[in-house]
């Protein structure tokens, strides 16, 4: 699939800020499932800082904006050719040992219900891949997709108790139950081309990857009950949502900020 992506984030500050430093993880991953063309990152009024590929294989770019400035726009534009690899992250170069992804963080901290879910869902699994599929299916069952039910800081345990959530909650819950079952798991941020019209929240998306012996990292999207295919564009990963955030920034002299995000993923027919 040939996907055209445009992603614009506008920060508006009540009082002009003195200075802004950002760390961006907004460049598509390099692996057999995707090929990137003419990718451009622009930060209005910004100076491009260091760029490097980290141990997880993500391209990180630092930007600084010298103030005073009341509005900053981060604009991403580019094309990605994608292929369906049934979720398998084939040909992705990374240096971090999978076992490093067995560590729990606050959003994925297991409670009794998550432990229960992991155990029940995993019972009878034939092999690690089967186990991963069962866990993902169980999370899809346990947490209904409902925007607005949760917020950015909701934990996996809270979302499970609520029985509702969005892709972030599904991913955190799957990561948690996978780690309980001994499978290294991580949070992935990216884009999703939605075939349904007018659902902007679908375009910026998140899912989980579980490490399966013999296959390597395999993506699972419990929010959509599937594995990532050619509609998905992968940006980067982390232990949880904050760790995998595509944009991190600290503003000096920070005042109240308003954020507007517009993401469009379109299929190019040519």
């Amino acid at each position, binding site marked *: 699939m040939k996907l055209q992506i445009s992603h614009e984030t506008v920060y508006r500050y009540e009082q002009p800020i003195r*200075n802004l*430093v*950002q*760390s961006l993880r907004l460049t598509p991953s390099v692996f057999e499932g995707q090929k990137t063309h003419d990718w451009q990152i622009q930060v209005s009024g910004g*100076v*491009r*800082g*260091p*760029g*490097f590929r*980290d*141990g*997880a294989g993500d391209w*990180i770019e*630092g930007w*600084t904006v*010298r103030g005073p400035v009341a509005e900053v726009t981060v604009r991403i534009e580019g094309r990605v050719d994608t292929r369906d690899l049934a979720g398998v992250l084939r040909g992705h170069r990374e*240096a*971090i*040992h999978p*076992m*490093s992804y*067995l*560590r729990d963080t606050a959003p994925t901290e297991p409670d009794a219900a998550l432990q229960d879910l992991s155990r029940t869902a995993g019972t009878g699994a034939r092999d690690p891949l089967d186990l991963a599929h069962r866990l993902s299916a169980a999370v899809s069952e346990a947490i209904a997709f409902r925007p607005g039910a949760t917020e950015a800081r909701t934990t996996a345990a809270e979302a499970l108790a609520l029985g509702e959530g969005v892709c972030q909650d599904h991913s955190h819950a799957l990561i948690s139950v996978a780690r309980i079952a001994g499978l290294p798991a991580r949070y992935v941020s990216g884009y999703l081309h939605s075939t349904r019209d007018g659902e902007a929240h679908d375009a910026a998306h998140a899912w989980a990857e579980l490490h399966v012996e013999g296959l390597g990292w395999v993506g699972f999207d419990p929010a959509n009950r599937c594995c990532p295919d050619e509609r998905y564009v992968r940006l980067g990963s982390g232990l949880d949502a*904050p760790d995998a955030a595509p944009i*991190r*920034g*600290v503003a*000096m002299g920070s005042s109240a900020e308003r954020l507007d995000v517009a993401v469009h993923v379109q299929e190019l027919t040519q």
Partner: protein
Amino acid sequence: MSYNEMFEGEAVREPYARLRDWVQTMPDDFRQMKQAEAEALFRRIGITFAVYGEGGDPDRLIPFDMMPRVFEQAEWRRLERGIKQRARALNAFLRDVYGRGEIIRAGRIPARLVYQNDAYEKSVVGFVPPRGVYSHIIGIDLVRTAKDEFYVLEDNCRTPSGVSYMLENREIMMRMFPQLFRGSRIEPVDQYPELLRRTLESVAPAKCRERPTCVILTPGHYNSAYYEHSFLANLMGVELVEGQDLFVDGEFVYMRTTTGPRRVDVIYRRIDDLFLDPLCFRPDSMLGIPGLMDVYRSGGVSICSAPGAGVADDKAIYTFVPEMVRFYLGEEPILNNVQTWTLWKEDDRRYVLEHLPELVVKEVHGSGGYGMLVGPKSTSAEIEAFRAKIIADPCNYIAQPTLALSTCPTFVDEGIAPRHVDLRPFCLCGDRIELVPGGLTRVALREGSLVVNSSQGGGVKDTWVLSE
């Protein structure tokens, strides 16, 4: 019986004989006057902080014992080789576990202990700091149990403190007793700040083209070791900065100065990893420099010690340091490790639970003598309470035998008497590995006490290494 460093067999060793004569000819009132003078000097220069993050009153003065501890050249040589060997192995280990992890692939260290360690920093995997050095200042805590028997209690690879005591103890001794140093063959330690600065400059990033600008990054004057931070900055002739004095712009880190921003090449940080950069670690931290880690990972600035260096000095990893020496250097370790039982192993756990009254049990991530059980000094109720803690979370503990620490002559009310001591030398790792002859000797001032922590009646001494 513990080893008394004052004696060689029955005979008093030559350097100590001189010191004993010095004490015996010293009138009582003179001694008291000098003790008061030493205290006043320490107060005046403001060196009152607690060593090793022991907590407690930051303005408390640590007692200074005027009786020096003495090492002969030959004794020191062996120690020096052992310390440098250990420092090389620890840095080789860090380079390995943030790279290919050969020691784990070879089955010499369990993967879990490294990759699931809280101090293992995955954000720096694959990045090799200048010269492959991760820990630039290593404080190795040693105890002695016999003439030729030294044991390493722990390694401190992050930001070991106490070196200002090493320097000040010497300074004060020289100021108060110049006659003791006249005609003596005592090796100097005052080159330490210069060596530290050279070490830091030698690990400047490749992007640095001129003479590197180094700074010391402190959490601020509320920190118990703030005195040491400003003391070292002063002696090295570098700026002492807090997070707010530094900022990232483009590809580099700059320091605000009265004459405008100045690029910084090497940061000797005395703050923990978690507070270095809110963009990478704790988003709520006000201490760090936003964007610092991106500049670091792209080779724009050096951070000493490297973020993630703490995985080498964890108590669970400690048991494998002799293995590191063999694996990376192909040598036999010169310094001993204390025999350590790791409580996640069933056999070890059974042994420890049966022998708690004889053992010292420590938390894997604890420090400063907190969260630990000293079996022989504990009541049976304390032992039972600790037993329950171990059973609840065995992975969190290690156990060691109670060592018979050596003693050194120490001033007491009746003259001089043996008191137990330990030693922390400070090894510098850059383009070369340097060790100033000496270190910080801590002494348990209470008779019979094995606890040298200043919070529990410990003091400090000047440490002499005699030249040939």
